[in-house]
């Protein structure tokens, strides 16, 4: 293979400006592919995080209760047909059976990063004459913060849910006219309730979410919802956001409860995101195609320019296979150099754009970071693309008739 390397590199070097231009062209195309791939990933992560609010990656809930009629619904053998009217059951607030065992099971799963059990149910918040209905969620502060990043969403106060403490959303606090240190009354259908002191105010980024939740300690919520020692759901964060559905499916095999990923509960969001992904994939393919055609045409011209040299190499004793590989290798080298430059350029572009592009609320739309796997895939892809683009010129070069080529 050394012969091919030596000749391919010399041919490219001889190409001079022509080689430089196609390498730069390939680098520009590849840098855009790198940029848009990284950008889309960051953007989608951001969209998901904003849209999901405090939704976890995976939720474990009790299976829904179904009514099981004792009589068979279909006639069997000679048994008389029984017509029955089965009413579906209303779903009660229930605890997850053996939830401690489930948590232990989750801890052993390699994909799971954080686990937060919680007890949530309907309730009322009262201050003076104003009543608001909401969901009272009992949490354990640290694991819940690890799952939902609630600590980062606090705008006032602290993430503190000791007995007698409550955290309210910003809009709800405004509606009730309360601030840090004020007290509100929480009650539920199963408890006449008690007064709680507001320790923190959070902003989940949407008004209805800010009016929907009040956070208290887990034990407090268990008492309010009459679920002593129980939890209504277990929320789980997994390593990779996009991998949540696979992890949920894996978990469902061993956990005898309802396991749902955010991907399943947010179908519409997922459809929108995958359309976006499809669109970018098409854009990337177009760029790849343009780069490939560029490489192919430059090499095609090089074959014509070097017809005499190829002829002399063939006459002197270079096999067709070697000539073929010399040109395939040139495609691969252009792809390699183009992708190394392109990755660097793509990163620079991301750095620049992350400073320029901001979302409506003033936050950075995305942050540039070195994505080694992406660079690796891009480089391998670009080398393959270069080889494929070189196929036609290489074939043509290898089929030149040396006797004719020399006379050109």
């Amino acid at each position, binding site marked *: *293979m*050394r*012969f091919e390397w*030596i000749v391919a590199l*010399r*041919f490219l*070097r*001889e190409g001079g400006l022509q080689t430089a231009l196609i390498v730069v062209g390939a680098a520009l195309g590849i840098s855009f592919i790198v940029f848009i791939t990284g950008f889309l990933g960051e953007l989608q992560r951001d969209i998901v995080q904003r849209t999901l609010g405090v939704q976890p990656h995976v939720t474990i809930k009790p299976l829904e209760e179904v009514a099981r009629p004792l009589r068979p619904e279909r006639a069997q053998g000679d048994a008389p047909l029984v017509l029955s009217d089965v009413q579906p059951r209303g779903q009660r607030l229930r605890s997850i059976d053996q939830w401690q065992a489930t948590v232990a099971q989750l801890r052993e799963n390699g994909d799971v990063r954080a686990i937060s059990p919680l007890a949530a149910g309907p309730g009322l918040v009262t201050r003076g004459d104003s009543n608001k209905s909401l969901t009272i969620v009992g949490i354990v502060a640290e694991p819940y913060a690890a799952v939902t990043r609630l600590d980062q969403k606090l705008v006032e106060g602290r993430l503190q849910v000791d007995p007698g403490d409550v955290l309210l959303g910003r809009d709800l606090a405004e509606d009730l006219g309360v601030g840090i240190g004020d007290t509100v009354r929480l009650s539920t259908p199963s408890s006449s309730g008690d007064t709680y002191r507001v320790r923190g105010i959070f902003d989940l980024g949407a008004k209805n979410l800010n009016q929907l939740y009040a956070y208290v300690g887990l034990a407090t919520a268990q008492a309010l919802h009459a679920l002593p020692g129980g939890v209504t759901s277990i929320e789980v964060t997994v390593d990779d956001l996009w991998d949540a559905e696979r992890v949920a499916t894996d978990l469902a095999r061993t956990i005898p409860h309802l396991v749902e990923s955010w991907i399943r509960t947010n179908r519409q969001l997922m459809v929108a995101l995958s359309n976006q992904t499809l669109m970018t994939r098409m854009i990337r393919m177009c760029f790849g195609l343009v780069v490939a055609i560029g490489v192919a045409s430059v090499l095609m011209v090089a074959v014509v320019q070097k017809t*005499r*040299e190829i*002829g*002399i*190499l*063939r*006459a*002197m*004793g*270079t*096999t*067709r*296979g*070697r000539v073929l590989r010399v040109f395939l290798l040139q495609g691969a080298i252009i792809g390699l150099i183009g992708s190394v430059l392109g990755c660097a350029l793509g990163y620079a572009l991301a750095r620049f754009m992350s400073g320029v592009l901001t979302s409506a609320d003033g936050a950075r739309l995305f942050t540039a970071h070195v994505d080694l796997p992406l660079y690796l895939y891009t480089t391998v892809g670009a080398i393959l693309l270069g080889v494929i683009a070189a196929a036609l010129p290489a074939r043509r070069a290898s089929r030149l*008739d*040396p*006797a004719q080529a*020399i006379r050109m």
Partner: protein
Amino acid sequence: MPAATAPVVSMSGVRKRFNEGLPNETEVLHGIDLAVRPGEFAALIGPSGSGKSTLLNLIGLLDRPSAGEYLLKGVSIGSASDDERTRARLDTLGFVFQFHHLLPGFSALENVMLPGLMRDGAFTRSQRENARELLASVGLSGAFDKRPGELSGGMQQRVAIARALALAPDLVLADEPTGNLDTHSADEAFALLRRFNAERGCAFIIVTHDPRLAARCDRVIELRDGSVERDGPVVAAGPPG
């Protein structure tokens, strides 16, 4: 003709037709019989269109005969695969062309090392020593690292001659090797060919239009209209001088 010296080239009844099977089929060579023994120094002459280049391409394994038999060093090579013929070119033949055809991206030394690179797959020390020696013997000791573009036509042709001899071929095929050079450079180049013939014993076939050059070879093969019209030793009846 002693039996021990088997011919390098042995052709019998070789024909070459172009556009075979088409209405415009033409036969360019009509049954050539030719034998070239090791160490011979032969000129191939004839007017243009007589089939010199076609014959040279057949001898040089750049083309296949339509009929007849061709043995290169006693081996029938007519139906061999392209790779086998390429290998035989590398091992047995050397080429010198009218327009010298050096690779512009390689230095003079590297151009002479190219056949070795093809044979060994990499540049080696022994190739380098061999190339230095050859370039020195063609009077280009000071031009090892020069690119072909930096050399005069005569110098380029001397590099090409050195390259043709790099792997000590049995037969060197030269197509108008001096056709593109001034008289002085042409004489120099021709003298080199004669010297290598004497020193290294490889056979030469030199295609030329120049009767003066042909007269300085040992044997003249004259083609006319696709047949050998005359084949024999040079008659020392040239112009006195």
